[in-house]
């Protein structure tokens, strides 16, 4: 691999071991937001030991070293020049990135890695002080340390020291300082990780923590060495602490059963290229969790929903606006309207939105409703004097229509190049190539799969508008939404019911259901008893009977 090429400045990106399917899509989107195209402005290099069986949480990006300092920077030094993109601060916006490292060497074993460092230019450039910040000390005065990061396995201090000894040839003159050194280096030992981030061949056996000799003797998958440039702005460092906490749903004032978890919301806003000054729209805003995240990224937020109760919230202090206030954001614009007839609520205008991010309602139970009479047939006119107290009837809104309308609204209201990002639940029978809804004006950018349960997963779909919308073709667009007809739509509709059906078929379902029923009854009875006793005490106290 060309890590030794004197032309290249290499970055090693380490991802968190979650949402594996999203890594590529998110980093591509973030770089694109800063005008950087992988394959053009930089290149992805193969990791040592590719291809491997298991997904790996690393990526190597190569930049021509002459572009560092001119087009891109990795420190604050070159920021005075115009149009220089700071790679570290740009990349730190990725939710899924753990750290960004200036890669000095890589190889399968530590010896290979050492050789790679010695035949490269990084040591020399570091000595010369290239790529360091404006406050960089002289080479001899820089304090430093080497952090040893062993994926999926723990090593004792002595073992780590032994690893560090291979790097003794670096011979840095400055003092070693464990806490807050001027420069932090990192040595990474990579092994195969499974879906959950645990080692496929663990070094220690579970209970006794004895070493398993066959696993211990296995060679590493790869070894990397480099200088740490930055840790994600969310503080996802390798010690596991996580500044994502402040966005956590647990702290929100107003939540509902379908509030989107903050991590997925952040990723969605990245996929949608939302940045400061973007105009973001959520047509199924619900409790506003996705919209809130867009606003946190600096977007102007517009949300609509047909459900007035969820828009208004539980009270003046527990509603969408309250959530925004909690984060010091100006209130979002909210309208109660029906996305099925978007073009009848809003006047014709030039494309308006930079991004549409949403979690549409799937299925009747999830609350998918649209305006119209509850039942087909003659509609009774509403008398004038009742007009303002009348509760509008709504009717079921099928999934196939939900998606067809969403894509039409996106195609007509997004600016060219604007993005639609939505979430769609799917079971194992869903085929990405066949079952996703389509639109002539929208191209598919990415589909990222997130497993939820054994049979159930969630897909985050990103589409981009690349063709002007023709109002006259509205019905044609709707007809062509589903390649397999509404069969595809049925695969995502009413998943809760389908899961329940599948569970009922399992052999011990009846037994477990009976036990659950018993437990529920017991809890109910206990509550009744407690209530009776409390009332009895009150009666004793006041000397009056509360029961009529």
């Amino acid at each position, binding site marked *: 691999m060309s890590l030794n090429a004197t032309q290249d400045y290499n970055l090693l990106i380490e991802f968190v071991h979650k949402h594996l399917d999203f890594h590529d899509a998110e980093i591509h989107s973030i770089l694109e937001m800063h005008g950087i195209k992988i394959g053009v402005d930089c290149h992805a290099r193969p990791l040592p030991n590719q291809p491997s069986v298991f997904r790996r949480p690393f990526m190597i990006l190569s930049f021509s070293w002459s572009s560092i300092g001119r087009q891109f920077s990795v420190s604050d030094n070159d920021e005075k020049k115009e149009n220089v993109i700071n790679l570290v601060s740009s990349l730190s916006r990725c939710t899924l990135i753990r750290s960004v490292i200036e890669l000095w060497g890589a190889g399968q074993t530590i010896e290979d890695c050492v050789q790679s460092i010695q035949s490269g230019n990084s040591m020399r450039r570091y000595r010369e002080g290239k790529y360091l910040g404006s406050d960089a000390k002289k080479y001899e005065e820089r304090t430093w340390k080497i952090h040893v990061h062993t994926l999926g396995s723990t090593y004792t201090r002595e073992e780590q020291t032994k690893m560090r000894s291979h790097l003794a040839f670096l011979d840095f003159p400055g003092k070693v300082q464990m806490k807050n050194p001027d420069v932090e280096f990192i040595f990474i030992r990579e092994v195969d990780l499974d879906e959950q981030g645990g080692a496929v061949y663990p070094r220690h056996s579970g209970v006794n923590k004895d070493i398993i000799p066959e696993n211990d003797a296995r060679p590493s998958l790869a070894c990397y060495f480099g200088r740490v440039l930055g840790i994600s702005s969310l503080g996802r460092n390798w010690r596991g602490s996580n500044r994502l906490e402040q966005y956590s749903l647990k702290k929100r004032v107003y939540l509902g059963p379908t509030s989107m978890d903050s991590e997925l919301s952040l990723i969605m806003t990245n996929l949608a290229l939302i940045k400061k000054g973007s*105009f973001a729209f959520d047509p199924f805003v619900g409790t506003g969790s996705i919209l809130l995240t867009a606003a946190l990224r600096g977007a102007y937020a517009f949300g609509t929903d047909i459900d*007035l109760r969820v828009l208004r919230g539980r009270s003046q202090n527990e*509603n969408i606006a309250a959530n925004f206030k909690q984060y010091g954001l*100006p209130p979002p*614009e909210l309208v*109660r309207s029906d996305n099925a*007839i978007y073009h009848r609520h*809003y006047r014709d205008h030039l494309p308006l939105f930079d991004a549409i991010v949403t979690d549409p309602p799937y299925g009747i139970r999830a609350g998918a409703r649209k305006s119209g009479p509850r039942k087909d047939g003659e509609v009774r006119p*509403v008398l004038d004097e009742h007009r*303002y107290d009348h509760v509008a009837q709504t009717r079921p809104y099928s999934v196939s229509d939900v998606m067809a309308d969403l894509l039409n609204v996106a195609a007509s209201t997004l600016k060219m190049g604007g993005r639609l990002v939505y979430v769609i639940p799917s079971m194992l029978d869903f085929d990405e190539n066949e079952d996703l809804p389509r639109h002539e004006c929208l191209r598919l950018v990415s589909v990222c799969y997130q497993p939820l349960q054994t049979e159930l997963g969630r897909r985050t779909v990103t589409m981009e508008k690349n063709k002007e919308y023709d109002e006259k073709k509205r019905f044609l667009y709707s007809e062509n939404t589903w390649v397999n007809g509404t069969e595809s739509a049925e695969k995502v509709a009413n998943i809760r019911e389908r899961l329940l059906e599948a569970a009922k078929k399992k052999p011990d379902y009846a037994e477990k259901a009976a036990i659950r029923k018993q437990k529920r009854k017991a809890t109910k009875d206990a509550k009744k008893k407690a209530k009776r006793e409390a009332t009895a005490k009150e009666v004793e106290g006041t000397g009056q009977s509360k029961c009529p």
Partner: protein
Amino acid sequence: MRLLTHNFLKSNVKGTENGYPLNIEVTTIRCEDSPVDKEFVLNMLPKINYPALRTAVQQMSPYCDPPLPELPEELHAVSSSSKDKEEEGNNQKYNNLDESVIANLHRVLFDVYLVEGWLVCPDTGRKFPVKECIPNMILHEDEI
């Protein structure tokens, strides 16, 4: 509801010929200052129906203290010279606007909220309620 949103809302009750722009009946208004975002304002201007905005400001102004700034009768656009820079041309069209005009536009678009009131269809008189800043535009089953 801010006036930016009002600029796009219309009534399309069955049988309506022209349900735009909606007239505003004010019950309660709130003002909240925000920093002027010149770029966003210039971004929005090509899409805004300016006469409708002026009318809306006139309908809301009596209830504001201090009263809303007066907007010029017309916004003067510079005709863009190069045709292939159409996207930028949309912004540059208004680039020569005075800073104070932009600040006023920002104020009326973003800083004024109709908290309680009604949006009235100019054609049929149908009133859409606005409560807690949220307009309720849902059509009843006999209006679809």
